[in-house]
C-alpha cells in the first residue's frame, strides 16, 4: 500500500502550525504584556525572547509553505479569502520585528516609541491571527453573525497568547517581575477559560458540520475527554502558579507546560472538527492535494531535515536555559 501522502502532509502542516502558535504565541504574548511593566522590566521581558523570536516566526513560514506545496489550490483560496487580515497580521509582525531591534539601539523618547510599536505590532498580529482562525473555522461564510464569531475567537486567542507569554515569564524571570507575571498568568487563564467556553458553545452553533461531528451520540463520550483534560490542565496552571506565588515549592516551568497542554488539546479538538476538510465544507485534503511527484520530493527532504531542525532548536533552548538578567538583551 502506498502511504496516503495528503494525510501525511496534513499532519506535518498541522504540527508546523501548532509549533508556530505555541512558540510565537509566547513571544507575541510577552509583547502584549509590555505596557503592564516598568521600563527595566520591559528590558528583561524582551531579553527573555531575544534568542528565539526569529526562529519561532520561521514556523509560520513553514506552515504556510507546506500549505503552498501540499495544497496549492487551498492556499490560493484561503489567502484570497483572508487577504485583509493577512495583510494586517504581516504589517503587525513587521512593526514588531523592526521595533524589537530598533528599541535596543534607541534612547529617550525614541525608545518609548519603539516600545509602543512593539506592543502595538504584537497586538495587531495576534488579533489578526484570531480573526483568520475564526473566519477559517466557518469556511469564510459572509454575514454579521460569522464576523462576530471571528471577533470572539480573536479575543480568545489574544488571551491564550497572554497566558503563554505570562507563564513563559514566570519561567524565565525573577524577583518582582516574576511575581507580576504570576498575576498576569492567572488573569490570562481566566480570560482563556471564558474564551474557550464561549468558542466551544459558538462553534457548533455556527457550523452544522462541527455540530454533527461532536454530538453524534456514542462517539460523544470519548470526545468529552478533550474538554475534561483541558479543564484539568487549566486547574493545574492555576494551582502551580498559586504555589509559586506563595513561595512554596513547585517547578518553574509547570505553568508554562500547563498552558502548552491547553493549546495542544484545543488544537486536537479543532483538527477533529475540521478533518477531512482543508477549506471547511468545500475542499477536502484529497481534492486539494498537489501532484504526488511534488509531495514526494518535499517529503523526502523534510524527513531528512526535520530531525536536524528539532535537534538544533533543542540545542538553542538548552544554551539559553535558565533565568535572564535585566540587561538590554545583548
Amino acid at each position, binding site marked *: 500500500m502506498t502511504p496516503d501522502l495528503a494525510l501525511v502532509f496534513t499532519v506535518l502542516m498541522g504540527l508546523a502550525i501548532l509549533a508556530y502558535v505555541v512558540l510565537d504565541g509566547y513571544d507575541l504574548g510577552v509583547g502584549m504584556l509590555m505596557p503592564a511593566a516598568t521600563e527595566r522590566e520591559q528590558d528583561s521581558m524582551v531579553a527573555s525572547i531575544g534568542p528565539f523570536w526569529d526562529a519561532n516566526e*520561521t514556523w509560520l513560514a*513553514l506552515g504556510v509553505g507546506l500549505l503552498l506545496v501540499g495544497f496549492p489550490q487551498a492556499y490560493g483560496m484561503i489567502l484570497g479569502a483572508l487577504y485583509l487580515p493577512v495583510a494586517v497580521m504581516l*504589517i503587525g509582525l513587521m512593526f514588531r520585528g523592526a521595533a524589537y531591534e530598533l528599541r535596543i539601539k534607541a534612547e529617550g523618547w525614541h525608545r518609548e516609541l519603539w516600545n509602543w510599536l512593539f506592543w502595538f505590532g504584537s497586538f495587531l498580529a495576534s488579533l489578526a491571527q484570531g480573526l483568520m482562525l475564526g473566519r477559517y473555522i466557518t469556511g469564510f461564510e459572509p454575514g454579521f453573525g460569522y464576523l462576530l464569531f471571528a471577533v470572539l475567537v480573536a479575543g480568545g486567542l489574544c488571551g491564550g497568547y497572554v497566558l503563554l507569554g505570562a507563564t513563559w515569564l514566570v519561567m524565565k524571570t525573577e524577583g518582582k517581575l516574576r511575581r507580576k507575571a504570576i498575576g498576569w498568568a492567572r488573569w490570562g487563564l481566566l480570560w482563556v477559560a471564558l474564551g474557550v467556553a464561549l468558542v466551544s458553545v459558538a462553534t457548533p452553533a455556527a457550523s452544522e458540520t462541527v455540530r454533527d461531528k461532536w454530538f453524534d451520540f456514542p462517539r460523544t463520550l470519548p470526545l468529552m475527554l478533550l474538554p475534561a483534560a483541558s479543564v484539568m490542565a487549566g486547574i493545574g496552571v492555576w494551582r502551580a502558579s498559586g504555589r509559586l506565588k506563595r513561595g512554596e515549592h513547585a517547578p518553574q516551568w509547570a505553568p508554562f507546560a500547563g498552558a502548552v497542554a491547553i493549546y495542544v488539546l484545543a488544537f486536537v479538538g479543532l483538527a477533529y472538527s475540521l478533518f477531512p476538510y482543508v477549506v471547511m465544507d468545500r475542499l477536502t485534503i484529497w481534492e486539494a492535494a498537489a501532484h504526488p511527484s511534488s509531495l514526494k520530493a*518535499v517529503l523526502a527532504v523534510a524527513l531528512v531535515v526535520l530531525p536536524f531542525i528539532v535537534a538544533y532548536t533543542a540545542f*538553542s533552548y538548552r544554551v539559553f536555559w535558565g533565568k535572564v538578567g535585566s540587561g538590554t*538583551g545583548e
Partner: protein
Amino acid sequence: MDPLDAVALARIQFGLNIAFHILFPTITIALAWILVYFRVRYARTGDGGWLATYRLWTKVFALSFAMGVVSGIVMAFQFGANWPGYMNKVGNIAGPLLAYEILTAFFLEATFLGVMLYGMNRVPGWMHLGATVLVAIGTTISAFWILALNSWMQTPLGHVVADGQIVAGDWWQVIFNPSFPYRLVHMMLASGLTASFLVAGLSAWRLLQSAEDVAAEKTLRTGVGIAALLVPLQILIGDLHGLNTLEHQPAKIAAIEAIWKTEKAVPLVLLAIPNDEKRSNDFALEIPKGASLILKHDPDAELQGIDAFAPDTPPVAPVFFAFRVMVGTGLLMLLLSWTGVWTLRRGARPPRWLLWAFAGFTFSGWVATLAGWLVTEIGRQPWLVTGVLRTQDAAGATSEAALGASLTGYVITYGLMLGAYTVVLTHLAGQGSAPPEPNPAGAAAGAAAGAAV
C-alpha cells in the same frame, strides 16, 4: 491597460514587497561572511579591537537580518495572495523549491543567529564561531534555492506535463537550468559589493567624525579591498550573463540594447530615449556596429530586434534605463574602489575627499541591485514563466479595494521602517565600535572563550 486595475495593483504590490525584501538579503548574505572574517581574526589574535569590530557589525547585521526576516515572511504569503494562478499552474515546481529553502536554510540561520547574537558568554568560543559560520552558510543556501526558482522562471527546463499539470521531470535540470549558474554568481557578487560598500561607507562616515578611530580605519580598508576585488569579477560575470541571456531570452537583450528592428551590423546604443508607443528611439547616441560586435563578436552579424518577438515583447524603456543604471553604478564602483586601494596603499591615512566619496557610496549596492532586478523581471514580461505562464493569467480575483487598502498599509510601513533603519545605521556608525563596556565580567568571559578557540 487601465493603470489601476487589479492586475496592475497586484504587480505594483508584489514588486514593492520583493524590492523592499531584497534590500536586506543583499546586505546579510555577504555581511554574514564578513562577520566570519572578523570573528576569525579575533579568535586568532585575541585582539579586543577585532572583538569590538565584530560586535559593532553584528549589530548592523542583526538589524538588517530582522528586517529581512519580517519582510520575507510577507513574501511567503504574497505568492498565494497575489498570484493564485501561479501556484495552480507551476505550484508543483515552485512549491518544493520554496519548501527546500525554508527547511534547509531558514531554520538554520534563524536558530544559530540566536546563539551568535546572545550566546557569546554562554558557549565555548569554537561553538560561537561555528554558529557564526552556520548563519553565513544558511543565508547562502537560501540564496541558492530562491535563485534556482527565479532562474527557472526565466529559463525553464526539466518540466513535463503529467495528469494535466506541470510537474518536474528532472529536478536536476529544473534546479541547474541554463541561467542559474550566472544568476547565482552575479547575485552573490552583488551582495558582496553591497555589503563591502556598506562597510566602507559607514566606516568612512565614522572617520569623518572621529579621525583617530583605528578600528574604523581597519574596516574601511577591509571594505575597500573586498570591493576592489569583486567589481572586476562582477563586470566579467555580468558580460557572460548577458551572452547567456542572448541565447535564452533574446527579447530581453533587444530591450536592453533598444534594438527595435532585426538588422545586420547593429549599432551599440549608448544613450537614447526609447519610445514604446512609436516603437523606435526618439534620440540615440550610438557606436556603429557596436552591438553586433559585442554580442556576436562579428561587426556585421545580424541581431534580432523587438519586432521579431511581437506581440510578446517587454516594455523597452524601463529595461533600457535600468540596465544603464546598473552598469553605470558598476563602473563608478570600479573607479572608486581602485582609487581607494591606490590612495590607501602602504598604510597611508585616508584623505577627507576619499572618505566623503565612500560615505556617499554607502548604499550604492542597493541602487545597482534593484536596477539589475528590474532588468531581469521586467525584461521577462509578458511572461511570468517564460513560454509557460503569462503574468496576466496568474493574477487572482482580489478586489481592487482590498488591494488598494493593503498596498497603502505596506507603503506606510515600509517607508517608516526604511527611514528608521537608515537613521539607526548611520547613528551606530557614528558611535563607532568601542562604546564604554557596560559589562566587564562578560567581556572578560568572552575574551577567555575567544582565546580558547
